[in-house]
Structure formats: structure tokens, C-alpha cells
């Protein structure tokens, strides 16, 4: 479904992603893990069209995304739940959800939008309860659910989640991850970017480990969960610390 080859992302003279290749098959839940500054968010910005300065190849359902605008990418079927939720705080829960359906609504699919709203409010009963409440007054976990619900309103074929557990209490993180598993069971293809490596790998089919802009590991979740490199990527420690006098 999504195929990336040799992606390089730059900010001026600084290269954040150095020739990364990865892929997501239809129906898969894929985790990308890595420490701060590993290049995870740059990768997602490139996929969603928010970062222009990249080279390489990104194909979504065999269509190159190079040169496409962010709305066109959403229309093609990719929705992103950004890091830090980025909900519209002054708007109500309902309006936030409707904003997510913007591209669908513009195509005149009003009935579908109504049905989707119903489905999302069923999936997140807490949002149903607070449908008229201003989004900025929700708790962190509720805001995350709203951000996911808003992304789902665009009827994505591929849902990208950037650090959905960030800043949330462990109990709430469990709820969010349960929601992700439910979505996956309903057939949504998911690309999950997380620092919480263990939690992300436990629910994923496969995972990739990014380290300073380079892909250093990938494999099935069971393989990565026993890998010491994963601990290092998660902890953000450098390999050199572990060489203990070995000549590098």
C-alpha cells in the first residue's frame, strides 16, 4: 500500500533522514520506533506532504506522492493524527470531527459524513457525551481520541499516528492502544510512530527502528521485542556506550 525507497529529508543544509526505505502492506499495523531526533516526524511530514524538501520515492497505492499537496494526499487516502494532537481547541468536539470530513464533504457526500459521525461517536462514547464541549477543555486522553476520530472522518485507507501516547497517563495510553487495535481489527491500515517502543511493538505486526535518520533494524514484532538494539533506540543511548574498550 505504502512503499518508500531511499527517502532523504533535509532542512536547509541539515539532513534529518538519510536514505530510508520502508513499506506498509494493506491491513498491517506497522510501528516505527526511535529516540528523539531519529527522523520519525520528518518521515511522516514527507509522507503527508507537509515537508517539501525530500528526495527518493514515496508510492501510495502505486501512485507517487512527490509534488502532491497535503489536501490531495488526504484525498488519496492518507490521514495523519499529528504529534501533540493539534485539535482545534476553540471549536466543539462535533466541529472538530466535521473538520476532519472536510475533503469528503466537499465532494458532496453529506449522508456518508453523517454516518461516519455516528460511527465515530459510537466508537468513542466519551466524545459522544462531550459532543458540544469545547475541544480545548477535554483531558489529554480525550483530545487524543478526538484527534483519532477527526482523522478517521476523512475515511483513510492509511492512518498515520504520530506519538499518540505522548504526555498521557499509562492507563490512558492503554486505552489509546486498545483503540488502535480495534481500528486495525476493523481493517484500517496503520502506521504508528512511537517512542514507547514496547507498547507499540506489542500491538504491531512489524516494526522499524530509526536511529539518527537511518534505518538500522526491522522485523516482526516478536523479533524486535527481544532485540537489545530496540532498548537502545527506545532509550536513545548511543552504541558507543556499549563497546567498553573495543576498538571502534
Amino acid at each position: 500500500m505504502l512503499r518508500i525507497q531511499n527517502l532523504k529529508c533535509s532542512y536547509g543544509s541539515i539532513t534529518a533522514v538519510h536514505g530510508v526505505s520502508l513499506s506498509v502492506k494493506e491491513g498491517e499495523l506497522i510501528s516505527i520506533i526511535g529516540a528523539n531526533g531519529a527522523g520519525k516526524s520528518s518521515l511522516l511530514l514527507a509522507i503527508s506532504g507537509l515537508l517539501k524538501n525530500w528526495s527518493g520515492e514515496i508510492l501510495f497505492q502505486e501512485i507517487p506522492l512527490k509534488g502532491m499537496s497535503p489536501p490531495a494526499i488526504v484525498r488519496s487516502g492518507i490521514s495523519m493524527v499529528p504529534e501533540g494532537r493539534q485539535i482545534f481547541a476553540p471549536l466543539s468536539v462535533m466541529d472538530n470531527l466535521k473538520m476532519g470530513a472536510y475533503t469528503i464533504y466537499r465532494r458532496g457526500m453529506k449522508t456518508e459524513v453523517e454516518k461516519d459521525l455516528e460511527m465515530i461517536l459510537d466508537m468513542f462514547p466519551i466524545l459522544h457525551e462531550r459532543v458540544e464541549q469545547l475541544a480545548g477543555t477535554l483531558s489529554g486522553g480525550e483530545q487524543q481520541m478526538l484527534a483519532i476520530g477527526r482523522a478517521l472522518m476523512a475515511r483513510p485507507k492509511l492512518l498515520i499516528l504520530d506519538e499518540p501516547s505522548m504526555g498521557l497517563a499509562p492507563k490512558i495510553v492503554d486505552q489509546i492502544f486498545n483503540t488502535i487495535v480495534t481500528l486495525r481489527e476493523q481493517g484500517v491500515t496503520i502506521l504508528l510512530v512511537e517512542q514507547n517502543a514496547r507498547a507499540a511493538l506489542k500491538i504491531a505486526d512489524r516494526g522499524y527502528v530509526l536511529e539518527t535518520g537511518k534505518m538500522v533494524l526491522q522485523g516482526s514484532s516478536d523479533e524486535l521485542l527481544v532485540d537489545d538494539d530496540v532498548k537502545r533506540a527506545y532509550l536513545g543511548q548511543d552504541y558507543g556506550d556499549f563497546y567498553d574498550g573495543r576498538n571502534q
Partner: protein
Amino acid sequence: MVEMQMSECSIEEREQLKLERLQSTLNRAYKNVPFHRNRFLERELSPQDIISLKDIEKLPFMDRGHLATHYPYGLFAVPLRDIVRIHTAPGTGDSPSISGYTKADLLIWKKLVARSLEAAGVTEMDIIQIHLPPGLANWGRDYKDGGETVGASVIPNSPLSLSKTLMVLRDYKTSTLVTTLAFAQQLMEHMFEKEHNPNELNLKRIILVGEPVARDVAKDIEDRLHVDVWLNYGLSEIPGPAIAHESENHCGLRINDDHILPEIIDPNTGRPVLPGEKGELVLTTLSARAFPLIRFRTGDMAHFLTETCSCCSHFTKMVWHRKRADNYIIISGIKVSLDQVKIDLKKALNIPSPDCEMEKICQGGIEILKISLVVDNQLFSDEIKDLERLMYRTEEILSERVGVPIKIRLMQKRP
């Protein structure tokens, strides 16, 4: 079924997965192994320059000499604290060969061995008996792990006499035997000599490892023992016996190319041969964490099968040839460097240039390296007993050094 996801992938998806794994392997090797990093730098390359599978041809080859030079831990790509198993084998030079596994490596290799066993039809209903010579002891452990992963009952490698091995085979109702060609043939001869009927056994299949086996030789075992015979290909340097396995219809060896990238090159020029042409097999590990090998020259000769066959496998298939690209001979699964044996022989006899020929023979089911040594002026002695004593001592020294039984036969100078 264990890890059959690759068979569900399209060609593009398989190529993508291989590229991803290759790039990660190169990133790790470059970062963590000075040997690999230096070889990139010497060619003014970085791992980011490898943007397709074909680009691997830009990288230099590795061979057994590099393994010996960086003995023991110089080629490990993870700290020793991450290593959970260290395999060692006799090696081909002065030092033993070594390979390491992380927990993840062991998990992957288990799956690969299980995949090979499943391709031979092994299921959780089977009883697997492993009988391998000491040189293949590491593979014995891998087959045990793979068999357990499938869920079969495994009888691990145990040093038993031939008659007791046969008892176990019969009484424990073994359905799958993992062994070498030499032992399979010895067992077969023993059974017929002692008038055992193959139907006394529950044996359904024999998996042969360690050396190439011609189809007619396998067919002979199949016909006489009423079993299926499957060939597996492995390499002691890359930790595992399951690099390739015979597929349904015995249409070549299916290479686990999602974990090991194969190439075939002209052994003289180092250039890739045309598809379907015979050459030396070169392997690159795609998922090994502890001990990555990049373009490792195996010395084995093979050719890729280019025509499609009825089993519709997406894996690369090859035919493994008996003739080797290097001066090695395989004795009970141990690769013996004939050049090294000659050096050892020279030292043991204390003569400048022994004139000899070497070949593998099989005596009583045991594979032996036979050295036919020409009695020339360097060696000649009036006392035949002195010469016999010298030969006996030399056999002992060489057997100890090489790790396989050695017999020296004296012969007259050729006319």
C-alpha cells in the same frame, strides 16, 4: 505454519523487503564493525549509496580469510553482552571459525529451520531424529530448535552406535531423520546386511545436509528405504543449516532469500554470471544482527533456476554442484582446506614439498581424508619401520589439526 508471510507477497513487495533489510544490515555493519566501515571508506562509499539490490555489486567480497584475520570477535556487529550463543566450528585455517547469535538471531534461525522442515512435510505430528557428525554439531542444535518450533518431537543429536541408532529409529517411531549422505548410506547398508525390513520403521523422510547429493543417489535411498529424501543447504559461517531447502517436486533448492541475498559470480573474474549460468555462490545476510556477512564467497558452485515450475515458489531456486570453486573438500560436513593440509603435512614431515594427492573416501560409514603420498628422495628411508612410524605420527598430527580422520598411503613415484 511458521512464518510463511513472504509467499503471500508480490514480487515488488519481496524486492522492497529485501532492499529494506539490506540497507539496515549495511547501516549496522558500517556503524558497528570497523572492518566493514573501512571497506566502504576505501571505495569512497557509504551505505546510503546502495539504493537498489543491484548496487550490492559495488561492495567488495568477503572470504574465509577475513574471518580468520578478524578472529575471534572482530566481525561481531553487536556488543558481547547482546550475544546469547557463540557457535564454533573447526574452521579451515589455524583458528576455529566463530559465529554469534543475539536472541533475535536465534528466533529468526529457528523460523528458517522450521520453514525448511515444513517444506519437507514435517508437522507437529512428526518425530525428528538428528544424527550428525561432530563437525555439524551446531547444525544439530539448529535442527533441534527448528523442529521444536514446528511442534514436532525432537530426538537431539546423541553419539550412539549404528545398531543403537537403528533401535532408536525403530522403537521411538522416528518419522524424520536429519543426517548426512554418508550415514544414510551406511544405515541403509547395515539394515540390508542384518536383514531388517524398511517397513519395520515409521520413517517417512530423510533430510540430508552437509554436501550436494545428486538426485539419482537420493532416489536410490528413496526406493530402498521407502522414504522421501530432501536436501538442505547450509554454511557454518552463516549461523544456520537452513539457507536453502529442497522444495516440492524436488525442483531445485529454494533459497531463503528474504533473509539471505544470493548472487552467483564467475569465481575467476568476480563478475556476476548470466542468469542460469554456473558460478560461485555469494551470500549476504539480510537479517543477522550479531554476525553480518556481506558478499561472502562460499566456495560452493551453483546455478540459479530461471524457468518457472509447478510449485510456484517465489523464492530464488538454485542447483548445488559437487565441484567447488575453491580448494576445499567437505568431510563429514567439515570444510577442509587442501592447501592448509599440505602446509601441515610439510611441517609434520619436515620436508620442503611433499608430492601428494588427496581425496575423500568412506570406510565403514566414516568419511576419511585419504592422502596418497609419493615416496621420493625427500622421504625415502632404508628403514621401512621408521617410515611407517613417521606416517602414523603424521596421521595423528594432521587428524588433530584438521579435525577429520586422515589416512596416509604411500605410493611410488609416478612415471
